[in-house]
């Protein structure tokens, strides 16, 4: 395996190990009134973090030191590979084309929606979010997108506030007035 590829493979384990080491130091400083002969509240998380560090260290060493034997896969993975090899079936789908900008767009859109939700209220935030997500996913019949976004949001608003009694975010002024008007029209108190 080329050095660059090997180093790339190390990244997730190095990140997890660094996180585990930091959290271990946090766990070591958990404050509590110790009782004689009883394990403290730090024991369990510290044990988990120590095990995480051990496994990460193993993976880092195993990646750095080239060896002949393959990876210890789970039993299901073995079964899938064996069965696929015998039957010639598509156990593993062919590598799909990657659209990183779509993913980043989806994450940014979702994060923006969560940020806007308490400010704009459920209806005002959800209609553009649904429309944008559908468009981002590649569906561009704008009339259908608009109808699905507005009607879908109204339906969800009605179901969760009127039927399931979940208090969805109302938003701040002036968007609060929009939500209150819709609630009034739908008979939601």
């Amino acid at each position, binding site marked *: 395996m080329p050095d660059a590829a090997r180093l790339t493979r190390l990244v997730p384990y190095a990140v997890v190990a660094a996180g585990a080491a930091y959290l271990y130091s946090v766990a070591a400083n958990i404050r509590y009134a110790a009782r004689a002969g009883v394990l403290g509240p730090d024991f369990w998380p510290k044990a988990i973090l120590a095990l995480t560090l051990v496994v990460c260290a193993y*993976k880092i060493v195993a990646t750095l030191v080239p060896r002949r034997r393959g990876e210890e896969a789970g039993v299901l993975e073995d079964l899938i590979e064996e069965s696929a090899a015998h039957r010639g079936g598509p156990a593993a789908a062919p590598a799909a084309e990657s659209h990183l900008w*779509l993913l980043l767009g989806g994450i940014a859109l*979702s994060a923006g929606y969560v940020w806007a939700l308490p400010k704009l209220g459920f209806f005002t935030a959800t209609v553009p979010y649904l429309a944008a997500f559908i468009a981002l996913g590649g569906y561009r019949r704008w009339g259908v997108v608009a109808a699905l976004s507005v009607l879908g949001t109204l339906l969800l608003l009605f179901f969760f506030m009127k039927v*399931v009694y979940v208090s969805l975010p109302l938003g701040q002024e002036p968007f609060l007035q929009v939500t209150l008007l819709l609630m009034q029209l739908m008979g939601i108190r």
Partner: protein
Amino acid sequence: MEGVLTQLAAGFVGVFSPVNFAALAVGLVIGLLIALLPGLTLVMGVVLALPFTYKMDVTSAVILLTAMYVSGTYAGAWTSILFRVPGEPIDVPLLWDGYTMARNGQAAQALGWTLVAALVGGLVAATAMVGLSQPIAKIALTLSTPEYFAIIFFGLASVVSLGGASLANALISLFIGLLLATVGVDDTYGAHRFTFDVPLLADGIDYLVVMVGAYGLGEVFTRLERGFRSAPLESVGTARTRLPPLKEVLALKGTFARSSLLGLLIGIVPGAGATVASFLSYGTEAQYGRRRSQMGEGIPEGIVAPQTAATASVGGAMIPLMTMGIPGSGATAIILGAFLLHGLQPGPQVFQTSSHIVYTIFASVFVAVVGMCVIGYFAVRVMVRVLEFPEAIISAYVVMCCILGAFAARNNITDVWLLVVFGVLGYLAERFRFPVSPLVLGAILGPLAESTFMTTMISFGNDWTVFFTRPVAGAVMALALVALVLPLLRQLLHRRKMASR
């Protein structure tokens, strides 16, 4: 036994009450539709349905979710057989013989075998579930914390051993899940752990948020990165089911028996589920079946084995949930969540305090199995049309259900932020081949694992050997260790086999 039958009969009456029956019918239809759609798994479906059950009573809520779980093991077979598109990972083995039969002009017969297999597997497992639950619940009453810890440890070891491309990755995933479960105020000391002065974190991270994020949002992000490209489908309007003659069904009684038993046992093992059952059953048939040399050429055994086992695993998975309160799979964890949301803790006591609820749920499994087959027989042509729906629209609504599910659990926007974080984590896990199931099961079973471990340590003076010296705990721990060593042994044997060639 007579008492069990009487209670089951009362349970059937309960299932046919208008509200419960409506919940069952809705659960079946939605479960079938979700199983049909590639990218939406049955666990995701059950997760997304949970917030819609908040205002239902516990029996109706669990009936709806269980019906979705049962039917989720069935409809994905249709797309495997008709279009070579497995709706779920469970359905991959159905490609090998099911799709081959369809290509040979026997699609209707293949769908018929799927229906019979789901019916037989489901009913056999449901019968076993009813017969075994009360004796197991009685045994569970005699168990103490070391035994409970050993059982949970076994479940965690199984999920690590069974899933994933790498044992080390599965372990890391599990540890992250267990660590997430430690966030919040500790029960014994009241100490704040990893709360970082965020008030909501003091209440801990709800495992439902972890599940919805990692399974639901994470999967949507993964598919979005691939551009929501689905395989082009042939005409969907010609699908129909033709049942096989009884003589042919009886000729496969050995396959039905083996697969039902395998599915039931795998369902009982915490950590294993319908996917493992389906693959293992196909593999068993390919190794030991009467027509093993013809497997893969489009014979009914190749359909019956995986489908029977997959549906049978549902009845098996309900046993540890109902008798010990231990969810062994993603779907049963959600069902446990529904129980807890309504203030009912499944376990041995529930058979004494709320047996009418238990047996109504048990009866609903029988009705669900029959119901899904009836719907499947008559509505296959209509239901597969859902595949013509654009994935971008379905995914947008899946994301909305994820967000609403996370928000509705505690009415707090911080949970929705956590959902997005776990969605990204779920995507990264998929990207770097870290299995998600151990993470989720770690988050679910973590609190129970810690509390049983700490209680044992307090009760037995920090003597950890108690997990190995008590007979039941020791036996289960030994099984867990075998489960952990199994992948290493398999690899060793594989290497020897390759070397001898």
